[in-house]
């Protein structure tokens, strides 16, 4: 039961991360023609299981990541100018690159929501209401 609940937390965290990434990508695309705008991205969502305990533990990309709610800014914004050369006006947004990243964010969001839903299903079965 406890494992399941931390799985739910992990799924919620992953979907929050995907939403934050979508926001940053939408901002990049909105500024695709703004002179001097540098494309940004969030730090990839990564989690590891710690070796010392057998419980799920999430390594945060920022402090307070698990706090939840939108009051805390969940993103660590970094330069993402991996693809596409800067235009003469200093803009580094490549729409193709952003589309790939957006598809990735969408996929991560879907994955997180599916995980959440399935965890809820398992809890429901455990309660005998499956």
């Amino acid at each position, binding site marked *: 039961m406890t494992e399941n609940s931390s799985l739910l937390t992990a799924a919620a965290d992953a*979907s929050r991360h995907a939403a934050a990434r979508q926001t940053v990508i939408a901002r990049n695309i*909105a500024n695709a023609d703004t002179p001097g705008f540098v494309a940004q991205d969030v730090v990839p969502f990564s989690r590891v299981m710690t070796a010392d305990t057998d419980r799920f533990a999430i390594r945060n990309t920022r402090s307070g990541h698990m706090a939840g709610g939108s009051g805390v800014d969940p993103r660590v914004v970094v330069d993402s100018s991996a693809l596409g050369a800067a235009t003469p006006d200093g803009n580094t947004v490549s729409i193709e690159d952003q589309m790939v990243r957006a598809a990735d964010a*969408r996929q991560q969001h879907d994955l997180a929501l599916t995980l959440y839903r399935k965890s809820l299903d398992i809890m429901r079965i455990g309660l005998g209401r499956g």
Partner: protein
Amino acid sequence: MSDLLSAMQSSVSGMTAQSTRLRVSSENIANADTPGYHGKMVRFQETIGADGTARVSTAAPELSNQAVERIYAPGHPLADAEGYYDGSNVSLMVEIADARQAQRSYEANLKMFDQARAMSSSLLDLLRR
């Protein structure tokens, strides 16, 4: 959820900015043959809204400083002593390329809006169970 809402707001501001650019571009094309007309250009800038949402907006249009075309037409009412009058400085090729780029960027913003909407509705689907 609020992240997705601000993503949608960013996309909407992008669409608004691109449609302003398209409007200015079409004004330029409409006036391509107006004597003495100077083409307008909009400049995009990033702004942060009151709610902390990143948006893009257009600054006031600036006049293009390209030289106006000198057209030889001795019979024209505006022609000077040598038979020339000032045309517009609008380059149709540049304007059409600009309009096409505005359209493509608009579509990209629309796609992002649609994706944020789909993501938030799938999030709300969790509540519907």
